[in-house]
Structures are given as C-alpha cells and as structure tokens.
C-alpha cells in the first residue's frame, strides 16, 4: 500500500481525484475547525505535533490496518499551528479496489489516530 503523510502548517485544499484504473473506491474524511469548542465561540484552534514520531506512528498504524483491510493507497494531511474556523485540520484519502475496505480502513485509522498519534489541540483562540 502506498502511504503519503504530510504534517505541516500548509492550508489543506481539495486534491484532484486520482485516476488509477485499479481504484474503484476513494473514501475521504476532512475534519474542520468548528465555530465553537466546549460551547464557547472560537476563532481558531492551535495544533502541535511530535515530529517525526507522529508520522512514524501513523505509518505503522496504516500498515497494520492494511493487513486487515487491503487498500491501494492512503494520503494523510494534518495541519499544525493555527487553524482558523472553517478550515481543515485533517484530510485523509483512502483508495481501494472496493468501498468496503476503503471505509473500514478510514474509520479504523481515525479511531486509532485519536488514541495513539502524538498530535494535540493545545489552544483555542477566542472569537
């Protein structure tokens, strides 16, 4: 499985859908900063990562999950630093032959990401 991981302070924008003729399914998740956090209006969240451990752990998780849910390619982008409301903090794209594996790997990865990948929301900037 091809794995691409980007953890940086670059704005996440839509990427062109790939046209690998072996890919039948592309499952994507985009997580954005909502206008409130714990009921309080905010302007932005601040994210911090432990590099390069975060990347290594993601790669390890994806390889482990791919043994159970065989997929063709995964791309993870996690933005760090200040992420304003309405902008994406994370985008994950999973390509597979069929949709079942793509959805399964994507959902499982999101669960594990929130347990094991050393990335934190460290601050909220008030609105």
């Amino acid at each position: 499985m091809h794995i691409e991981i980007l953890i940086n302070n670059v704005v996440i924008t839509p990427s062109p859908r790939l046209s690998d003729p072996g890919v039948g399914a592309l499952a994507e998740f985009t997580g954005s900063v909502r206008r409130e956090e714990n009921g309080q209006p905010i302007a932005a969240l601040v994210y911090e990562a432990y590099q390069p451990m975060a990347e290594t752990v993601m790669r390890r998780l994806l390889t482990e999950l791919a043994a159970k849910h065989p997929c063709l390619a995964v791309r993870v982008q996690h933005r760090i630093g200040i992420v304003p409301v309405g902008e994406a903090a994370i985008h994950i794209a999973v390509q597979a032959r069929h949709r079942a594996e793509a959805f399964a790997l994507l959902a499982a990865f999101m669960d594990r990401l929130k347990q094991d990948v050393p990335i934190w929301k460290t601050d909220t900037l008030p609105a």
Partner: protein
Amino acid sequence: MRLIYFAHARRATGCSLEELPLTAPLTPAALWDLLIERHPALASLRTVSRLARGDDFLPADALLSPTDEIAIIPPVSGG
C-alpha cells in the same frame, strides 16, 4: 537524560526541554516520581500520559538509560 514535554505537560512544567542529570538506569515509574518531585503540576497527568523513546511508546517494564531522550506524551487530541 533529555526530557521533551508536549501540550499539557509543557504547560504543567513551563518548559519544552529539560536535561535531567542521572547516573543510573531507571524505570518509567521511578522517572515519574522524579519528574513530579520537580514539577508537582505533572501529578495529574501521570496516569493518563505515556512516555516515548524515539518513535516508540514505552511499556511499564522498560529500562530508561541516562542518555535517553524521553518524550512525555499527554492524551492526544489530533484530527
């Protein structure tokens, strides 16, 4: 030993990096005892945080060397 504090751990200690002069290997539990002695605000993070060396979380029975670089990883909240 070099310690790296992230997120809540950095807030609790007031620093990102700290050098701890050690002469002998020690267990994670012994390291936590030392760290909480220096930074009492770390106490509440002890049960929910993990230690990492390099790219690996450390098991409770690991042995830490005085030359290790150890990261204190409070509960993560990415995504």
